[in-house]
């Protein structure tokens, strides 16, 4: 088994699954009916993407099924970014979290679709079509809320300030990224950072929001170190398979 590739694929799958689970929490709680449907649809896309990446991880692993990977690992065995697992909070918090990630994910999939690994490039090209849509959705909301009322502007600005220290991790390259980059399988995150800055800066400008200054940056999600939010999320998501192992729908 190619351990580096397995972990690399698992990280992508975990980001999709955890964000999908967070977005599903909005189902029936959205601020308007249209938005409720939008967020549930995004959740569905993320679960679909997760499924594709977990299937591939499962093939590489050769033992655990995609479902086992999703439902039978503990928080220290999940490798998603800490940003993704942050609670939904108010609608503004959710939109800011998603916008910061959507801009990253759009650029990430764009690069990954050129991977020399055929399965990864196919899954990325497929997911990219959806990521474009998700970015447009969160970006439009950032502008609407930022350039909205004083209250909406303040709320998204606060959310931005609160979540900013989770953005450093998105661009950290570790030994797995570096090893796989040598064979053109992984994405060079330094390269997409510049593009990410452009999207963030231009959007925040239109939205009349201020980009927080970089100070302390949290780190560790890629190594299985998480904030307290993830355990609660997994407890709810995995409950059924833990209580009734191998239960079928």
């Amino acid at each position: 088994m190619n351990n580096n590739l397995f972990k690399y694929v698992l990280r992508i799958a975990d980001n999709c699954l955890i964000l999908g689970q967070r977005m599903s929490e909005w189902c029936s709680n959205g601020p308007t009916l249209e938005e409720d449907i939008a967020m549930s649809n995004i959740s569905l896309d993320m679960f679909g993407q997760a499924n594709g990446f977990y299937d591939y991880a499962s093939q590489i692993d050769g033992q655990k099924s995609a479902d086992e990977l999703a439902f039978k690992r503990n928080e220290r065995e999940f490798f998603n970014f800490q940003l993704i697992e942050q609670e939904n909070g108010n609608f503004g918090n959710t939109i800011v979290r998603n916008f910061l990630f959507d801009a990253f994910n759009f650029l990430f999939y764009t690069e990954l679709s050129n991977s020399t690994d055929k399965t990864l490039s196919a899954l990325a090209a497929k997911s990219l079509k959806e990521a474009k849509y998700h970015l447009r959705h969160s970006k439009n909301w950032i502008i609407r809320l930022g350039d909205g009322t004083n209250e909406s502007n303040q709320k998204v600005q606060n959310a931005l300030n609160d979540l900013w220290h989770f953005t450093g991790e998105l661009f950290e390259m570790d030994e797995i990224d570096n090893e796989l980059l040598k064979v053109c399988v992984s994405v060079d995150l330094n390269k997409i950072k510049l593009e990410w800055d452009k999207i963030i800066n231009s959007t925040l400008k239109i939205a009349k929001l201020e980009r927080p200054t970089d100070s302390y940056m949290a780190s560790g999600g890629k190594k299985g170190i998480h904030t307290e939010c993830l355990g609660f999320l997994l407890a709810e998501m995995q409950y059924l398979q833990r209580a009734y192992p191998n239960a079928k729908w």
Partner: protein
Amino acid sequence: MQSGKIKHIWELLNNIPDPEIPVISIVELGVVRDIFYKNNIFIISITPTYSGCPAVKSFIDDIKECLKKNGFLNFKINLVYTPAWTTDWMSEKTKLKLENYGIAPPSSKVRCPQCKSQKTILVSEFGATACKAFYKCEDCLEPFESFKCI
């Protein structure tokens, strides 16, 4: 030798309606990518519209049931991701069927399926299914769904 049977399978699948838009078949939607015969097995390649499309499971079940009912027992359904599904695969005839059904077909200019006016506005980029957006006609005021171009 199997080409007649492959043609037959295409015809059978062309009669399976899309579970969410029953006016078009899964072949017309472009989900069935390829059918071929290898090592005594018919391989049917299908691709999902959206990654999370809940209809995929339903496509697979419908194909299995249809083929078994028609005497095909040695087949396998393969899920392929590349090339990624696109609305470009939809024929003009299929698009017309959608419009007559009340869904604006994928197009850069969305027109109202009721009164054909081009004066339409986007209400939400997300409709009742992942593949559709929600629009409203500014002339006849009718709300309608539009197939997203992807």
